[in-house]
């Protein structure tokens, strides 16, 4: 079994960690030179901002409370390292897949669901970045489970339906 750990709205979560005033507000992080939205908080997604939307197309949403901000990659890299290190402290078999994703091999884990719940708790407490975890028999299916976990947005779902996967939001 594999778990895919994915940070929720990673760049937006990083910005929020040190800006408590941005909690529960629609925020969009813009790409280099403030070109396009590359991260959106849940509230910004609810305003209908698609991934990669050009800044000029979402400018009018500022009237609805949207806050746009320039990206700060040194910050994201630092917090990414913290998340990955925390995962590596909990599991010997972590492969970092991108700045905000990592696969964990659960071959030797007796209870994958409880393990996933516990690393979710530890990562969120130690780093302040919220994560979603998908579990599946292959890396591909764990990624699919992760996507499902994010979509349904409930605290914990166990589903052995179609692809025998477990999702943790």
């Amino acid at each position: 079994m594999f778990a895919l750990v994915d940070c929720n709205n990673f760049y937006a979560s990083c910005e929020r960690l040190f800006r408590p005033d941005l909690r529960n507000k629609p925020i969009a992080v813009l790409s280099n030179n403030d070109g396009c939205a590359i991260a959106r908080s849940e509230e910004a997604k609810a305003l209908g901002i698609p991934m990669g939307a050009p800044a000029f197309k979402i400018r009018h949403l500022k009237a609805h409370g949207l806050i746009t901000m320039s990206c700060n990659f040194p910050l994201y890299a630092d917090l990414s390292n913290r998340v990955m290190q925390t995962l590596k402290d909990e599991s010997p078999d972590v492969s970092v897949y991108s700045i905000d994703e990592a696969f964990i091999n659960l071959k030797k884990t007796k209870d994958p669901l409880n393990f996933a719940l516990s690393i979710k708790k530890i990562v969120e407490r130690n780093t302040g970045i919220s994560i979603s975890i998908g579990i599946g028999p292959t890396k591909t299916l764990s990624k699919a489970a992760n996507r499902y976990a994010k979509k349904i947005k409930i605290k914990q779902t166990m589903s052995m339906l179609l692809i025998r996967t477990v999702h943790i939001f």
Partner: protein
Amino acid sequence: MNMTIINLGQITAGFPSPAADHEHNRLDLLQKLVKKPASTFVFEVQGVSMIQAGIMPGAWLVVDRSITPRNGHTVVAVVNSEFTVKRFGYQDGHPALFSANKKYAPILFKEFDELEIWGVATYCINPLV
């Protein structure tokens, strides 16, 4: 064929340093102050609300998020969407944040109030010069 090369240290053709076998690493402050680098952050303190606890304006506060806050811990908390450093404790059975300055009243958290403790302060580094 595999060959292992072992480094046994430097060899001196002249008189060897008598201190060579007694060298230590220099004191590494970061290692002393930061037990868990992945969950440790540094804040710079503004204001005087913790002055009687020895936390001066301009101090650096080493904050570890992995520690569970307990009664008496100095914590970084979020109050009214702003960071603040206070001592965490209880008053009349309610969780509370206490200043270390008589001018500031404790902040009490009653039912349905939300108290977010961001992290527990482990060290305070005050500038003296």
